[in-house]
């Protein structure tokens, strides 16, 4: 049976590991992004009212994941936004995505940390059975 797309955190004492699962790399990327948001606040608390587009390119899926998470970190920092919903398409090393979110509302979102960036530690995008798993440690 096909397992639904989902995400989880994995333990890293100082920082945090994010891991997304999905039937395609694109879905696993989307779930990894959700896992990253969840290190900051409850993803459900974010109102998806503004869409931000992303276009990235790397033939190596690992580095594409790194770029994707870092692009989100950058947009969160410079727009002072949080994102709670993601749509990702990946074709021939080209990533096209939309992230939906809203400006940070400290009282409502209760953000715990600020993500500094995605790291190469435990970075991998691989197919395990019929699932794609996209993961890395992020510096918080």
């Amino acid at each position, binding site marked *: 049976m096909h397992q639904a797309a989902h995400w989880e*955190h994995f*333990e*890293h*004492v*100082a*920082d*945090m590991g994010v891991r997304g699962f999905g039937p395609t790399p694109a879905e696993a990327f989307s779930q990894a992004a959700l896992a990253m948001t969840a*290190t*900051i*606040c409850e993803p459900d608390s974010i109102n998806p009212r503004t869409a931000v587009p992303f276009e990235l390119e790397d033939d190596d899926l690992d*580095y594409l994941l*790194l*770029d994707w998470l*870092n692009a989100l*970190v*950058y947009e969160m*920092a*410079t727009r*002072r936004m949080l994102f709670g919903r993601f749509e990702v398409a990946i074709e021939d090393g080209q990533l096209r995505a939309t992230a939906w979110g809203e*400006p*940070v509302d*400290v*009282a409502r979102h*209760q*953000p*715990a*940390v*600020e993500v*500094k*960036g*995605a*790291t*190469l*530690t435990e*970075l991998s995008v691989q197919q395990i059975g019929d699932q794609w798993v996209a993961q890395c*440690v992020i*510096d*918080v």
Partner: protein
Amino acid sequence: MDLGKLEKIDENSWRIPQTGAMRVPGVLYGSEALIRAMDDKVHEQLSNVATLPGIVEAAYAMPDAHWGYGFPIGGVAAFDPEQGGIISAGGVGFDISCGVRTLHTGLTPREIIDRQKDLADALFHRIPAGLGSTGAIHLNDAEMDAMLRGGAAWALERGYGVPEDLAHIEENGRMSGADTEQVSALAKKRQRDEMGTLGSGNHYLEVQRVTEIFDETLAAAFGIRLDDIKVSIHCGSRGLGHQIGSEYLKRMAQAAASHGIELPDRELACAPINSDLGQSYLGAMRAGINCALANRQILTHLARGVFGDLFPHARLDLLYDVSHNTCKLEEHRVNGEKRMLHVHRKGATRAFGPGHPALPEPLRPHGQPVLIGGTMGTASYILAGTEEGMTRAWGSACHGAGRSMSRHQATRDYTGRQVQDELAARGILVRSPTQRGIAEEAPGAYKDVADVVWAAHHARLARLVCKVEPMVVIKG
């Protein structure tokens, strides 16, 4: 960590023997209990650092070492550019020049207690803290470059601080060799509104009371007496440093093969110091150091404003400002011979010994103040660099408590309100924009910083001077 994999050098130092691709051994400092409790990943990461080209003498781990990315946090390693030595973005960390500065106040505990709530509220109001906060200073392109070249000296020229501050900051407040051309437009844009902000996570501003003196002579030399009130600020280079770190980590990983560097793990991403990429990172990282120094200088100015309003006779003179995520070119003795080495300190504090020319005149005979941040419910410590530390770990010591519990586990075990109430009952007022942030930073989620600083003391990396305990904590 399995002690069976280590050779005991003495009670507080342990060796990872040189095997396989390791060019030098690994050396860990800490008591048997600390080493036993240390993550096995430290062993793996330290052994990997020991394989990197141009490493000199040993890869070192401080008593608070834990699993990082590439280098362990609490890792120290020196590289010789003449021997093909490398520089690593992961060996510095994303929060370039993150550090601690401590200020005197001349105030007494009684004065603070009488106005403790007003002080906490005023500091929280004036110091931008937490995710999404912005400073009052917005830099245009020319000012951004001037800040990245000038560091705390730039801040002073703009009216943030007094001239006496600079001598009490590493590099006299201005890291030379910063190359603003090597800092991307994205990194600069990310910093534009973040000058004078504290950040979040484990960053803080604390009002502290000196509760114990361990070394009367050194304390007197540092201007510290029992029951003094100090102010400490822990933060770094904000978005600019994070962006530089992220960008160069990937570039170094992708370019390693072209430099003929075989990485045991790509997280060790690095480039030869004498390569275009190595020099480019060095220039950008030095600009990142200046950003952190300018940031702490502006925060100091804001804190002085608050204290000036509430306590007109307070004098917030700077004791010292240390950085604990850096790579610096320093002269060290190797087998009696002077050599210029690029010393990476990732989660490790520079701790120069007595007589070092980099120290300002009044402090020089005593060694550099080493400022170690604890948790908001326990204590922080001030130590002094030692002569022996210069040869034992390139003049370096620990940097903090280190987490014992993941953030996730901390939110399961604590609530922000509960932590805040418990600390308030003990006379510690915590102000933060976020309850979850307080829960994740609960004192119980950290190792006992006392064990770490005593281990650094017994390992002769630095000498314990005094203990300070928080009265007011502003958390990002």
